[in-house]
């Protein structure tokens, strides 16, 4: 049997046997080289309580080349693309080592959620949000965890579960969006522009309303 297949089989069995790490691996489409991994959001972070799924592709030359991983679950994090789930993590690129396993790589992803690296971002907008107003960022990340990763919801959250608030997903204040929508701009356009300008938290004072209207007209 192929050494790669032997090793992957062992790694899957290892994850199954290990009850403490709470990391799971399962097959997608019957090939042992295309897997779905999942792990719980780390505690004391906005991701707590969510379960994050990762798409794993094992290349031909594994373990000498890194595995390909991206988030299936949408994550609001500076080093994860909010659109595609692409991950910016050194061990998935040039810092890969053949002694790393699927389990240890998933644990590394878990710890990436604990300690974002906004200076080496995958998603520049999210990173901007993180660096300018951490509190507001945390709230948005928590909201994303709640609606996409099945995290615990706030009690006062609107009765209808499953209905997602676009404004909250973008991490914006409803009052701000309403204000510019009131000027006659389409709501989603307003959300786009405010998000791009990072109209959040302390940054609100830095951006004049004229600038926003200008952007809204331009776009």
């Amino acid at each position, binding site marked *: 049997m192929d050494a790669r297949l032997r090793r992957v089989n062992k790694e899957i069995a290892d994850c199954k046997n290990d009850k403490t790490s709470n990391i799971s691996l399962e097959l997608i489409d019957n090939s042992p080289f295309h897997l779905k991994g999942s792990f719980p959001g780390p505690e004391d972070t906005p991701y707590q309580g969510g379960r994050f799924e990762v798409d794993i592709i094992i290349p031909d030359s594994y373990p000498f080349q890194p595995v390909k991983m991206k988030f299936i679950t949408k994550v609001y994090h500076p080093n994860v693309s909010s659109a595609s789930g692409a991950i910016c993590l050194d061990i998935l690129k040039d810092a890969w080592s*053949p002694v790393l396993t699927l389990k240890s790589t998933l644990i590394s992803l878990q710890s990436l959620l604990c300690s974002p690296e906004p200076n080496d971002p995958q998603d520049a907008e999210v990173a901007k949000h993180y660096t300018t107003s951490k509190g507001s960022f945390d709230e948005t990340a928590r909201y994303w965890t709640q609606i996409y990763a099945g995290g615990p919801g706030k009690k006062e959250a609107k009765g209808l579960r499953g209905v997602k608030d676009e404004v909250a997903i973008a991490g914006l204040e409803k009052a701000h969006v309403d204000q510019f929508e009131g000027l006659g701009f389409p709501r989603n356009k307003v959300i786009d522009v405010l998000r791009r300008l990072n109209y959040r938290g302390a940054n609100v004072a830095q951006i004049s309303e004229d600038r926003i209207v200008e952007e809204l007209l331009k776009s």
Partner: protein
Amino acid sequence: MSDVQDPSDFPPQSEAPGLRLLDSSLRCTICSEFFDGPVVLKCGHCFCSLCIRQSLSEKQECPACRESEVNEGHLRRNPVLEEAVSAWKQCRRVYDSSRQAAEFSVPSKKRKFDDKSRSATCADSSAVEDSRNYSGSHTNTPAQPDDIVGCPLCGKHVRYQNINSHIDKSCKDEPEPTPPSSKSQWDNILGSKSQVKSSTKRGKERALSEEMDSPLPIKSYDTLKDKTVRELLLEHELPTTGDRRTIIARHQRWVIIYNANLDKTRKIRKSLGFLRRNLRDWETQQKNKTKHDIQNTTAYQIQQKSEFDMLVEAARPKRDSSSILTASSRHGHAAPSDRSSSRLRTASSSPVEGVVDTIVVDSEEEK
């Protein structure tokens, strides 16, 4: 999965202290098999010779501690560990058979049952291990930075580096090595199926007579001509068929398995004939893996045109809708607000898509 041995074959730490730990500490962290020709790096970390040589051919650092500037010259054999591994393999066989006796009354545990039948049928499990190490395993491609491009004149697949000389010779540079010829050369070297036995014997004799003691040096192929590489292959009685990429890969792999073989104790070393067969199997596997490599790119493009067009179409509407939206948002107020409310409605029915959509539009604008 049942035929994969790993430390969890043993009871947990609480029941049998140290057994699992012992089993896992005698395994290479790259292939997670028992050490096969263990070697030590200058940092003290230990791997199978074949594993670490392959790893070093990708990146010159210790996989465990990332100590840099490590190369093949730093590898030192570890015969003591090798003995420990072979002793432990023996213990394992005894353990397996005793477990077989103990658990025969509990056939419900399927995995263990399979284990039993395996250990029963393969009395000599070291033979299994060996075949594992040599036939199917360690199938990675050595790093090949040079790309293959299609010749603009004849459409043939040529290494980028050779494309100019290929065109200069009006596309008639080297006789196209057809797979059968490569196969027949392998057959000549290894002997066809009927001759396998005699060729093995020949190989063994050679192994005894030849002093396989000094490792082969690693070549920098970029400075070597095709002819020189072929000569290197001939030196070791290896086939010289195939394009430059194939022969370089062949020689690279040969150096790795040859040197890895030297890191074993003399009595368990394989014969050169065995290594050659191993190399041939590896090459066949590589060929199967790269089968989906596109031979003729232009033909492929034509063939896939409909799919490409479809993808382009799928990508376009978003841009269109956003531009329509932009255009209408400039005109007055009533129309855009209608549109936005309809968009909002669709967004609330499938919020995920809505978000992806807006983000995509967004990133386009940023560019």
